[in-house]
């Protein structure tokens, strides 16, 4: 009797236990699914915050493309759906690299239910003319000159002795000579010219065929003085390689004027042994400027002469460098004035990383090194022991018709 009762009791207990286990499982399932539901809702907000943060990166790129000195922080509301805070840093980065950090908040910073942070490294390269030396009316280089990049003119290019035309950097395809003038001796090689293999000299002047050889009547004269590189010689060229330079200069003067600037309304003469702080600004001289000898430029910036009259619009005498005798990160631009000498006169022992751009004439005398571009709406005259190496500028200059580039190097969530 007792054994039988016992057996029935066990069945009941087992049933209850089983029900309890099933109940626990069911409750667990319910909680799991509710947790998953909450997780999905959070994920939905998280996605929205990520897109808001990404919008912050785009916003910063837009600001940097307008003004490379932009650093933020900026708080911005995106269509009432969220907000971001974005800032820019360049610490520890190479030139032209910017680290953008953006945090997106949904629905707002003050009552954020979800936040996401993105950091992105962006390389923004301002526009740079494609040539190392460009002049509307003509280029004259004397002796012991090295040009790393292209020479390009709408006028005659006269090359003196021991002229080396090389690519701007190993592997680059530049290092050629082009003129759009149709005159004879459009490229006049008067001394030894050294070039690299695979380069070319093109002129729209008369061809060898019509003139019966390398004569003074041809577009490229004295090819026999080319000592290396065996460049392709093309006379009577009609390709886009020898298209006209068009309006000059390359500088977008309106854009330049809208940059952060200091205006000097008198002719300025900086005496010897001075330090000039460029302070990341455009220094606009309305009557011309002269820098005497032993001048050190610190910081980076632009010297811009817009008017005046005299011998030179912008004169650098001698021993003009950056800190420690290095390159001065400065652009030299003359866009106006009446000058009996040259718009820009760079005398001797000068190192510049930037754009040198004159309206009618730019002269570089001796022991001058320019990393950047030298150009003129008239002529460029280079004397001796001058090196011009095509390079991006040390300080931003708005350029007409040159394509600047923005490349996103990395994008990651913090």
């Amino acid at each position, binding site marked *: 009797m007792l054994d039988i009762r016992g057996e029935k009791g066990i069945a009941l207990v087992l*049933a209850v236990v089983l029900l309890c286990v099933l109940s626990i499982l*069911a409750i667990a399932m319910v909680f799991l699914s509710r947790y998953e*539901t909450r997780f*999905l809702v959070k994920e939905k907000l998280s996605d929205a915050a990520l*897109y808001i943060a990404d919008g912050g990166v785009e916003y910063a790129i*837009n600001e940097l493309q307008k003004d490379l000195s932009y650093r933020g922080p900026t708080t911005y509301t995106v269509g009432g759906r969220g907000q971001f805070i974005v800032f820019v840093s360049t610490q520890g980065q190479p030139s032209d690299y910017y680290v953008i950090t953006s945090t997106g908040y949904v629905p707002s910073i003050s009552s954020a239910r979800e936040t996401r942070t993105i950091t992105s490294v962006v390389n923004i390269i301002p526009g740079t003319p494609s040539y190392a030396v460009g002049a509307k009316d003509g280029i004259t280089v004397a002796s012991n000159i090295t040009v790393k990049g292209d020479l390009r003119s709408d006028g005659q290019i006269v090359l003196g002795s021991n002229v080396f035309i090389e690519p701007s950097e190993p592997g680059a395809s530049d290092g050629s000579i082009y003129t759009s003038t149709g005159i004879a001796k459009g490229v006049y090689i008067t001394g030894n010219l050294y070039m690299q293999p695979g380069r070319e000299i093109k002129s729209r002047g008369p061809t060898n065929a019509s003139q019966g050889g390398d004569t003074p009547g041809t577009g490229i004269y004295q090819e026999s003085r080319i000592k290396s590189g065996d460049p392709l010689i093309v006379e009577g060229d009609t390709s886009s390689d020898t298209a006209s330079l068009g309006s000059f200069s390359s500088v977008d003067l309106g854009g330049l004027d809208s940059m952060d600037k200091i205006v000097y309304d008198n002719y300025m003469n900086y005496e010897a042994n001075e330090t000039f702080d460029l302070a990341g600004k455009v220094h606009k001289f309305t009557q011309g400027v002269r820098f005497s000898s032993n001048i050190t430029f610190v910081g980076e910036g632009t010297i811009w002469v817009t008017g005046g009259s005299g011998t030179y619009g912008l004169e650098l005498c001698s021993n003009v460098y950056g800190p420690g005798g290095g390159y001065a990160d400065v652009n030299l631009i003359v866009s106006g004035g009446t000058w009996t000498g040259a718009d820009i006169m760079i005398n001797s022992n000068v190192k510049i990383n930037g754009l040198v751009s004159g309206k009618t004439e730019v002269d570089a005398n001796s022991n001058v090194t320019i990393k950047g571009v030298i150009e003129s709406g008239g002529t460029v005259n280079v004397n001796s022991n001058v090196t011009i190496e095509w390079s991006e500028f040390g300080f931003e200059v708005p350029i007409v018709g040159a394509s600047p580039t923005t490349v996103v190097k990395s994008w990651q969530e913090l």
Partner: protein
Amino acid sequence: MAMATRNLYKGFTYIELVLALTIIACIVLAFTHLFLNTSISVTSAQYETLACNFAGDKMEEIKNESFDGIGSPWYPNAWETETETLSGKTFTRTVTISQLETSLKRVDIGVTWSEGGESKNIDISSLIVDRW
């Protein structure tokens, strides 16, 4: 002896059966309600996920467009409404492009759907720059 044993079996079996059925019925009823609610929540979450993906897909598509093409008449479906049926549910997606500056546009994407007679929606927004 055999009769008594049978009676004992019958008596306990019925009581136990009734008790067990009652307990099971109570629990099943309670959990049916829970399961139904949970099922609705899971389905709702599934729809939200589908809606998020529906909106996100469009955002990625727009980000891959050229800047000039975003919001231009020849870009398909920009600032227009389109519908798509996913897992048996109809979702309506609206894309709005706003030109904030010459080189900056805002993209707002909203997805709506109805659930249990109630209208639901999700929204995402971002900015797109005209890169050099």
